[in-house]
C-alpha cells in the first residue's frame, strides 16, 4: 500500500513507564542526575514519590513507532521538543502523520509530524524524516 500525504502512522504504546528501566538506562548513560532514580530527590521539585523518565527514552517510543512502520534503518532525522516530564507508571502513546513525501538521494522520504502523548496531552512534539521502504 502506497504511503501518501496525510497518512497516519500506526501508533506505538508504552503502557506503563517502568522505573526499573530508568535505572538501567541511567547506568548505560552514566547519568548522575537523581531525578531518574531517586524518588526522595524529587520532593523538592514537586514530583515526590515518583521518578522522571529520561528524555531519550521518551523519544525512543517515537523511534520504535517509526521502525515498526518502515523498518530498523528508516530514520533519517528526528527534531523534537520536550514538554512536561513523563513519570513512572505513565501510559504514553507515540503518534505520527505524514506531512509530505519527497525524493532525496534516490529514496522516497516522508516528513512526518510526531508526538508522544499522555492522556491526550503532548509531552514530546516534533518532526521526523523517514525513508520509505519499497512498496
Amino acid at each position, binding site marked *: 500500500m502506497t504511503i501518501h500525504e496525510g497518512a497516519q502512522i500506526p501508533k506505538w504504546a508504552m503502557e506503563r513507564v517502568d522505573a526499573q528501566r530508568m535505572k*538501567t538506562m541511567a547506568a548505560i548513560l*552514566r547519568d548522575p542526575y537523581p*531525578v531518574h532514580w531517586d524518588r526522595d530527590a524529587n520532593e523538592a521539585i514537586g514530583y515526590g514519590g515518583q521518578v522522571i523518565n529520561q528524555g531519550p527514552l521518551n523519544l525512543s517510543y517515537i523511534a520504535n513507532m517509526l521502525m515498526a512502520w518502515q523498518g530498523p*534503518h528508516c530514520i533519517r532525522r528526528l527534531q523534537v521538543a520536550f514538554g512536561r516530564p513523563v513519570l513512572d507508571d505513565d501510559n504514553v502513546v507515540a503518534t505520527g502523520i505524514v506531512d509530505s513525501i519527497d525524493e532525496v538521494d534516490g529514496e522516497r522520504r516522508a516528513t512526518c509530524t510526531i508526538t508522544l502523548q499522555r492522556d491526550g496531552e503532548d509531552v514530546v512534539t516534533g518532526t521526523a524524516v523517514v525513508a520509505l521502504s519499497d512498496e
Partner: protein
Amino acid sequence: MSPVETDVEDAVPEADMLALIGHEFPGGSRRIEHWENWLLTDCTGFDQLPDGTVHPIALFHVPIQGSGMTIAALFALGRVEGAGSVGLDGYDWEYFKPLREDVDYRVDGRVVDVERCSTDAGRIYDRFVFSIDLTEPDGNIAARVTNFWRLRR
C-alpha cells in the same frame, strides 16, 4: 537588574557562559558493543534489532561519551547540579548511516551556542547547545546530534 538577577549574575556570570561558545570537547572514539545495545533496546520496550543494528536512541549517550565527555562533565561545564537544575529543551539528530555494533566511530563535539534567557515568570536560565559528529572509520559521517539543554540559575 533585579536582586534575583544580580544573585544569578554573581553565581554564574553570563560572560563566563558565553565564553563557552566554540569550546571543543576532548574528542575520541566509541564502539557500541552488543550487550550495551541489547540493554538499551530492552529499556525502550522494542524487539531486538537485526544484524547488529544499534537502536537510534543511542545518539544520546554514545556521542557524549565518545567525545570524551560525560553527562556529569557537561553539568560541570554548565555549572549546574542537583534535581531540577537541568531541563531538556530538544534534540536535532541526523542519521546519515545506520549505526552498527562493533564499529569504532570517531567522535568530535563542541558547544555551538549559549544564550542567557528568562522564563515568563522571570526565572533565569542558560540555553546551552552542543553538537557532536560520529564518523565511520572510512571517514564518512554517520550521524550528527545537536542537543538543546536548559541550565536553570
